[in-house]
């Protein structure tokens, strides 16, 4: 493809490879006249600006020369350090002169551009070449067999390579060897080539085919192979390129006969030794592989001969050719379309008329058609063989899990240029681990969690703590795992019960020494003074009056003492009056303590006293309000305190067991971007979560947004270090946050084939590969190709996983056309198969906790059809049905086309993706319209489900005898708890628990539980019998941590609630 052209009849030289930008120097060629017969000469420099799409070349400088040139070369040798342009222009003139120009001076517009000049040669200097090893060495050739070697540092006195060859002849070409720096070759129109050894200062070999028809117009050494060179012949009778190997110099190794007439110039690419350019009198420019003779490319040229052709040293795809029609053209051999370029030219021509509507017709003229350019060459094909410089030999790419994929193509130096097949083509997959400390700490944390060795872990952390704060945090965390945690918290805050007690006792003793001994007689005065009045009141049993009198007389102690005798109500009133009157510093504290108003302390204490406030809360607060109070204090510290106090809020959150707030607070204070600082946070969070699980009966499996983000960031980091399993372990279990679900899916799959029996069915995608109608995770779906084909593909039974659904709403066009009416939406849903899959998000135990009334269970076990078992759906709440159907909303992007169609303009596929999104956000409002539209009309998978399952459900199997004990034990325990539980909240929890344990009983009926789980359950039952609930809880933890989540998720959390309650109530 032609890139540029300049209208000059000139010799050309590219700037050296190291020069940037790329310049092309042109010097008016000798012995050629154009129609003007002008003998003016000039030396010009153009810049090759490929970012400019036009065909014009930017002229940088013109220098009017008194010489015309036979040869022009641009050597890299820098003779003058000034200027940005490297090298020196060396010109061979008509009268035996060699002129050195400074290109930077030419570009600068300097008048004095000639560095040196020497006219030692006789006759025109047609041959010039720069030694690529010593760039100060230039060889030149002229008439009379003259060859000189010029040292640019000592230009005055040239050397000769040896004695002149006889008979004297013109030297038409000269070339330095590309491998051995002291070897030079010259050739003459007579067809003889001579190789010179400059160390020996003599010709060492003469090359000639004795045909007398080789008329050497070109000579080039092989770029890689020292002993090979090519000679081109200008003779029309022998228009060939001969490839010679000096190891066998009696005849050419290969003869390239691709030109029909004599060859005028050749150029061998330094970038790819398989590319040799040649131009001839047949008006062709060919690019051939001299090693095979094959023509790889024919440049689209006009019908003119080219007399000079040059590769651009810097840009290997670019070449320039000078033709006798007075034009220098720059081409790319990579092909490409010339349409864009031609268009520009046409525009230029049209607009050059200035007026697009010269005839005043009101219509602009159509663009000028240029017939000759609409020829067949509008698309130019590239080289037949890709050039070496675009063949990428090496690569290293990262992939998921910190893996690095590398390959390299190390080649044996190929002497014959052809054989390179011995190489084995390997790709290495490597694991990159850069964060060793991070990994080892993460490992320790995991071990602590697995071994439940929390106390020792915390202790280690305390010992290793660098700062007081860090130490505090770990001490607080540790306390969580110890008995009497509140007392220990107090100690940590600097309050020791015993210490206070001792102090107090001491004071008491001292006091008692001064007390007057009681025991004597006393008289009861009933006089009219205040004492008397009180006495009267007392004698009449009128405590209230007595107290009032005391208060009136400011006898506070008496008033209180009397009030105590007067009963609760009076006491309370008296206390109030007392507090109203009293103004001492600690009154508010006392007030709070007596009135049990801890909130007051927490809300209004001076934040400097946060420790005291926390201590008070620790001492007095009831279990059910404790967390909230700690929370409140923490929030105040965070919002109102200075930076120091803000960090202390972490301690409050630890006491409160509020993981989410701890994360928020910590993140605010620390820079979380470094893996180790994230590790710092995660360690605390994980330990705190464990503590909360152990100490509080609440379900900790809920994960807040912030925590989830941090945990997934952490999991990502672990994954990036190749710790896929660890990443999975730390990833929050049950959340329907799409990024976490995606990560989980990615991690699970990245793990490769899961170990038998330990699957990761928590990912929704896995589920879609399940055979239809079969509940629970299924083993044996790991056949690789199968698994891979099915995921995501909308083959009807394989809807897109919800994890990706968030991203489904990407088509900006389609999103706008979404049907917005729920009714419409609903009508769209049925055509799609309804997968049973996304139970993850919906069937989480936490979700159930939050909406206990909307009782529901995994769809695997219950068809969304008319209720068959009262136990299964005791509330008969239609919403529960709807909730079960909703997860089936994610529909394949398209069931009829082979690809998902997020971009389908119609948008009807698209809305299917949208819908679940809305539901995730606000299930209740979405369930309503569905109730109206969908009653009992499930289709697709669900439908099959319906057909296969109801029969089983209607007649429930009995629980096997050996497992019946489980049911009776658990039910009995719940009953016991219920009878001793007092607050309605607990009762509700227990009620719910008893219902939800039906899942377990169902599984027992079906005998689908693994033996390890059932035996574990029996162990728990035994521990219940012995009332050793803590042991039961330990076993519970063991089961949960070793079993498959989906297998146990329906009942294990609730079993834990029961055990914890039982433990608390001590039944």
């Amino acid at each position, binding site marked *: 493809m032609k890139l540029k052209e300049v209208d000059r009849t000139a010799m050309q030289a590219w700037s050296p490879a190291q020069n940037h930008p790329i310049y092309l120097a042109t010097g008016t060629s000798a012995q050629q006249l154009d129609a003007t017969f002008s003998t003016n000469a000039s030396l010009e420099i153009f810049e090759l600006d490929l970012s400019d799409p036009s065909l014009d070349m930017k002229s940088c400088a013109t220098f009017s020369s008194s010489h015309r040139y036979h040869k022009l070369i641009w050597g890299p040798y820098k003779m003058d350090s000034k200027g940005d342009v490297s090298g020196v222009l060396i010109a061979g003139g008509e009268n035996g002169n060699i002129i050195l120009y400074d290109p930077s001076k030419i570009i600068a517009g300097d008048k004095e551009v000639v560095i040196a000049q020497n006219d030692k040669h006789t006759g025109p200097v047609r041959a010039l070449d720069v030694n690529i090893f010593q760039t100060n060495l230039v060889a030149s050739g002229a008439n009379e067999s003259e060859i000189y070697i010029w040292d640019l540092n000592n230009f005055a006195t040239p050397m000769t390579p040896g004695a002149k060859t006889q008979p004297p002849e013109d030297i038409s070409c000269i070339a330095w060897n590309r491998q051995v720096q002291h070897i030079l070759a010259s050739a003459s129109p007579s067809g003889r080539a001579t190789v010179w050894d400059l160390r020996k200062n003599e010709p060492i070999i003469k090359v000639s085919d004795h045909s007398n028809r080789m008329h050497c117009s070109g000579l080039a050494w092989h770029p890689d192979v020292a002993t090979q060179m090519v000679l081109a012949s200008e003779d029309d009778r022998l228009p060939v390129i001969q490839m010679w190997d000096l190891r066998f110099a009696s005849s050419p190794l290969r003869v390239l006969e691709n030109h029909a007439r004599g060859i005028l110039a050749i150029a061998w690419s330094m970038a790819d030794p398989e590319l040799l350019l040649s131009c001839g009198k047949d008006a062709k420019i060919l690019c051939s592989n001299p090693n095979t003779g094959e023509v790889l490319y024919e440049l689209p040229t006009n019908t003119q001969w080219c007399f000079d052709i040059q590769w651009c040293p810097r840009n290997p795809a670019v070449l320039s050719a000078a033709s006798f029609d007075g034009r220098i053209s720059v081409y*790319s051999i*990579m092909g490409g379309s010339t349409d864009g370029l031609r268009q520009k030219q046409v525009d230029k021509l049209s607009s050059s008329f200035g007026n697009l509507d010269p005839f005043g017709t009101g219509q602009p003229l159509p663009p000028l058609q240029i017939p000759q350019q609409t020829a067949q060459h509008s698309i130019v094909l590239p080289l037949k063989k890709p050039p070496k410089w675009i063949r990428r030999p090496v690569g290293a790419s990262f992939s998921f899990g910190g893996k*690095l994929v590398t390959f390299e193509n190390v080649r044996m130096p190929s002497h014959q240029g052809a054989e390179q097949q011995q190489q084995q083509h390997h790709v290495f997959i490597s*694991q990159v681990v850069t964060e060793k400390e991070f990994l080892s700490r993460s490992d320790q944390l995991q071990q602590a969690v697995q071994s439940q060795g929390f106390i020792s872990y915390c202790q280690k952390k305390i010992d290793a703590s660098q700062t007081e704060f860090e130490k505090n945090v770990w001490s607080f965390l540790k306390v969580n795992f110890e008995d009497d945690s509140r007392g220990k918290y107090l100690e940590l805050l600097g309050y020791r019960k015993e210490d206070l007690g001792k102090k107090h006792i001491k004071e008491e003793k001292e006091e008692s020494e001064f007390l007057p001994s009681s025991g004597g007689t006393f008289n009861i005065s009933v006089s009219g003074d205040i004492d008397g009045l009180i006495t009267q009141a007392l004698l009449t049993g009128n405590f209230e009056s007595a107290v009032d009198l005391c208060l009136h007389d400011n006898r506070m102690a008496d008033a209180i003492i009397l009030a105590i005798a007067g009963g609760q109500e009076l006491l309370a009133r008296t206390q109030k009056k007392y507090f109203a009157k009293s103004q001492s510093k600690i009154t508010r504290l006392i007030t709070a303590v007596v009135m049990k108003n801890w909130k007051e302390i927490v809300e209004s204490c001076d934040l400097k006293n946060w420790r005291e406030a926390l201590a008070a809360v620790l001492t007095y607060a009831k279990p059910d309000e404790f967390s909230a109070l700690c929370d409140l204090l923490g929030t105040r510290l965070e919002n109102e305190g200075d930076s120091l106090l803000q960090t202390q809020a972490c301690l409050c959150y630890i006491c409160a067991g509020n993981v989410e707030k701890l994360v928020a607070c910590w993140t605010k204070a620390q820079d979380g971007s470094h893996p180790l600082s994230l590790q710092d946070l995660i360690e605390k969070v994980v330990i705190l979560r464990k503590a909360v699980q152990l100490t509080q009966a609440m379900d900790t499996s809920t994960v807040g947004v912030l925590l989830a983000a941090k945990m997934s960031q952490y999991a990502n980091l672990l994954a990036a270090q190749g710790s896929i399993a660890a990443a999975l372990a730390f990833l929050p279990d049950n959340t329907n946050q799409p990024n976490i679900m995606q990560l989980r899916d990615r991690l699970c799959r990245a793990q490769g084939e899961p170990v038998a029996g330990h699957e990761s069915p928590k990912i929704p995608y896995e589920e879609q590969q399940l055979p239809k109608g079969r509940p629970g995770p299924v083993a044996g779906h790991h056949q690789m190709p199968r698994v891979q084909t099915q995921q995501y593909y909308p083959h009807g039974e394989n809807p897109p996983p919800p994890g990706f659904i968030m991203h489904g709403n990407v088509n*900006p066009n389609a999103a706008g056309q979404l049907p917005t009416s729920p009714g419409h939406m609903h009508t769209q849903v049925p055509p799609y198969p309804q997968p049973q899959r996304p139970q993850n998000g919906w069937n989480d135990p936490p979700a159930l906790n939050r909406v206990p009334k909307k009782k529901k269970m995994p769809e695997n076990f219950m068809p969304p059809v008319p209720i068959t078992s009262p136990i299964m759906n005791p509330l008969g709440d239609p919403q529960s049905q709807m909730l079960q159907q909703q997860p089936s909303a994610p529909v394949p992007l398209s069931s009829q086309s082979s690809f998902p169609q997020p971009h389908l303009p119609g948008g009807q596929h698209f809305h299917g993706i949208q819908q679940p999104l809305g539901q995730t956000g606000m299930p209740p409002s979405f369930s309503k319209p569905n109730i109206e539209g969908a009653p009992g009309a499930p289709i697709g998978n669900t439908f099959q489900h319906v057909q296969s399952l109801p029969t089983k459900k209607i007649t429930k199997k009995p629980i096997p005898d050996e497992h019946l004990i489980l049911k009776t034990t658990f039910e009995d325990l719940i009953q016991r708890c219920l009878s001793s539980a007092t607050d309605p909240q607990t009762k509700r929890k227990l009620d719910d628990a008893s219902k939800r344990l039906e899942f377990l009983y169902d599984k027992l009926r079906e005998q689908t539980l693994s033996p390890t789980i059932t035996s574990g359950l029996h162990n728990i039952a035994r521990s219940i019998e012995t009332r050793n609930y803590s042991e039961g809880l330990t076993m519970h933890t063991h089961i949960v941590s070793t079993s498959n989540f989906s297998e146990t998720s329906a009942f294990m959390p609730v079993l834990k609630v029961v055990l914890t309650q039982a433990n608390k109530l001590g039944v």
Partner: protein
Amino acid sequence: MVSVINTVDTSHEDMIHDAQMDYYGTRLATCSSDRSVKIFDVRNGGQILIADLRGHEGPVWQVAWAHPMYGNILASCSYDRKVIIWREENGTWEKSHEHAGHDSSVNSVCWAPQDYGLILACGSSDGAISLLTYTGEGQWEVKKINNAHTIGCNAVSWAPAVVPGSLIDQPSGQKPNYIKRFASGGCDNLIKLWKEEEDGQWKEEQKLEAHSDWVRDVAWAPSIGLPTSTIASCSQDGRVFIWTCDDVSSNTWSPKLLHKFNDVVWHVSWSITANILAVSGGDNKVTLWKESVDGQWVCISDVNKGQGSVSASVTEGQQNEQ
């Protein structure tokens, strides 16, 4: 540590030009001058040849996996001027689409972030970049940027999907207002950034100039939730630059020289967490680089045949010469 966990003998009969793992890191796609594309299952250190895809009539330069939410889809580009999209269905891989819209070697293919749908950018030696968008029913819509890089585009790389003005996911249901961008590098020594206008046309948004020779590869770093955008570029001139832009709206990019190598640098690749850059050079050298706390890029590993040690921390890593 960089340690080989799997050595895959590809049995390619000529040079390998690209090797890419799928989204999960369980399958490896390779392509070669022998005109074939191969897919291996490499789980658990194994190497099972799943597919040997023939269809190109010239050396295959690059392969690219689409996001699995669209199925198992692989794109390949070749010197034969074609882009082929391969798809697995029912366990067999087949040619799904052939794009023959280029006039010269297609050197690079890159899938857009999955949030945009199935969009493939292709850079060619004809100087053009084409964008193929799947429109459903087996149809692909083609947009072409002509003369993107004179005499050739060598690399294309998409910007991660980030919604302007918000680093957090938008509330579900709302259509995210993504701005699609990608970077390209070419034989005009330039890196160009392209942006899709509201009318769906692609417009040159920025020219990044620092290289003095062909840009061989560009790699837009994955988003890690920070407002800074980062691009790595490498060139025939041996230089690797890290370009950063702190403010997308002003769109000012500043280059930082990572290193000047003695040979052409062919390929740059970011780790998933965007903190390590793998650089592959013409002397068959692979090096890993990481930014130190003071913002300097430090070589943390020399990888040879997939093996290498990693300096314990960035501060101990050898500073790059100069």
